[in-house]
């Protein structure tokens, strides 16, 4: 079985300050890796590197994603097989529907397929008003839309950076229960960053605890 993520070692510095230094990172198909750690532990940096929106330091090993070594030629194609929910997601100045559909349009999917997928994820995440302006949403609702936007892509790897942190405990527990089966469905792999020990306990098949950029 091909590992979804195979990367050893992973190093990242900003202005000669090392923020991430992990000996080895492996994630198999269908696995959920829960990444925990205090603020500044390097969790969000790890998500940015895994999402191919930032490059690791030269001293890092080769990043193999879905079994393919990442290079400039396949970066976009590999990026289109993953999805990310950032801790502070950005809502584009358009409707909630358009926000959820954006990545699908960029992949040039037919309108009928897009409409079906948007409806399915909106129902799952209890998003009713798809016509409202997304940039006016509260942080909690923005997180729901961001989650819907990521799930609609039906990615092989989903990277979640504290995706439910702005929601109150009850809603978070309810959404998480509905979400859990989706995170490992059809061989999908997930990296889930969280502060909450309860969330971590209920989710992960594997754990990575970070402290000051290193495995704790």
């Amino acid at each position, binding site marked *: 079985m091909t590992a979804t993520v195979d990367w050893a070692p992973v190093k990242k510095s900003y202005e000669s300050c090392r923020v991430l230094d992990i000996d080895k990172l492996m994630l198999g198909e269908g696995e959920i890796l829960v990444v925990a750690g205090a603020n500044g532990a390097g969790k969000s940096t790890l998500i940015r590197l895994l999402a191919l*929106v930032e490059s690791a330091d030269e001293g890092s090993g080769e990043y193999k994603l879905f079994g393919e070594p990442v290079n400039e030629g396949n970066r*976009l194609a590999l990026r*289109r097989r993953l999805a990310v929910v*950032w801790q*502070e997601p950005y809502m*584009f100045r358009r409707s909630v529907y358009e926000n959820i559909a954006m990545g699908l349009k*960029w992949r040039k999917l037919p309108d009928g397929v897009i409409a079906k997928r948007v409806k399915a994820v909106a129902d799952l995440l209890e998003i009713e008003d798809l016509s409202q302006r997304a940039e006016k949403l509260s942080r909690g609702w923005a997180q729901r839309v961001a989650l819907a936007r990521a799930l609609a892509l039906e990615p092989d790897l989903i990277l979640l950076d504290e995706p439910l942190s702005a929601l109150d405990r009850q809603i978070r527990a309810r959404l998480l229960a509905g979400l859990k089966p989706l995170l490992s469905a059809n061989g999908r792999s997930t990296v889930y960053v969280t502060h909450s020990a309860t969330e971590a306990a209920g989710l992960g098949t594997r754990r990575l605890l970070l402290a000051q950029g290193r495995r704790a």
Partner: protein
Amino acid sequence: MELWEITWLTLKVSASAVMVSILLGLPAGTGLALGRFRGRRFLMALANAGMGLPPVVVGLTVAIMLWRTGPLGGLALLYTPAAMVIAQVVIALPIVTGLTAAAVQSLDQRIRLESLALGASTGQLVFTLWREAKLGLLAAAMAGFGGAISEVGAVLMVGGNIKGQTRVLTTAIVMETRMGHFNAAIALSALLLALVFFVNLVLTYLQQGRRP
């Protein structure tokens, strides 16, 4: 009849100059805002300084370039509307470039991350940035149009204010004033103001969308 011709030529020359400035300035400004290359800050300073280019200097430079013995003399463009478009482009391009760079640079940094993570190609990312910066970019277009249509020194030097060929509202106003025809100059000024207002009205409606 002549008034209609002058007004139409004014609009045609300035609209062409702004279109060319947008076609060149939008990618240039975006490149300056997003690029990480040596000399970027110098080019940015050049664009910003270009926003205050004295029109007579622009007129003189373009005239020398297009003069029969100049480097572009073979094109025989001097004293044609094309020469006036070139002069107005030199004036409007730094405005559009500088304001585009400022608009794109002031966008939320998360737009780039979010777009890339959603699978945007480079082209899709750039179009998304432009759409998010719509307010600033339309302001750049309005400022560019304002700079071009209100310009008189450069178009007079390279166009020559030839009746039926290169006479536009600004050069006609100067001519009527020199001849002491103040009523005609005032009427032409009112027409120019109305034209500027109408074009900006359309652009402002595009900029503000459905907001009341």
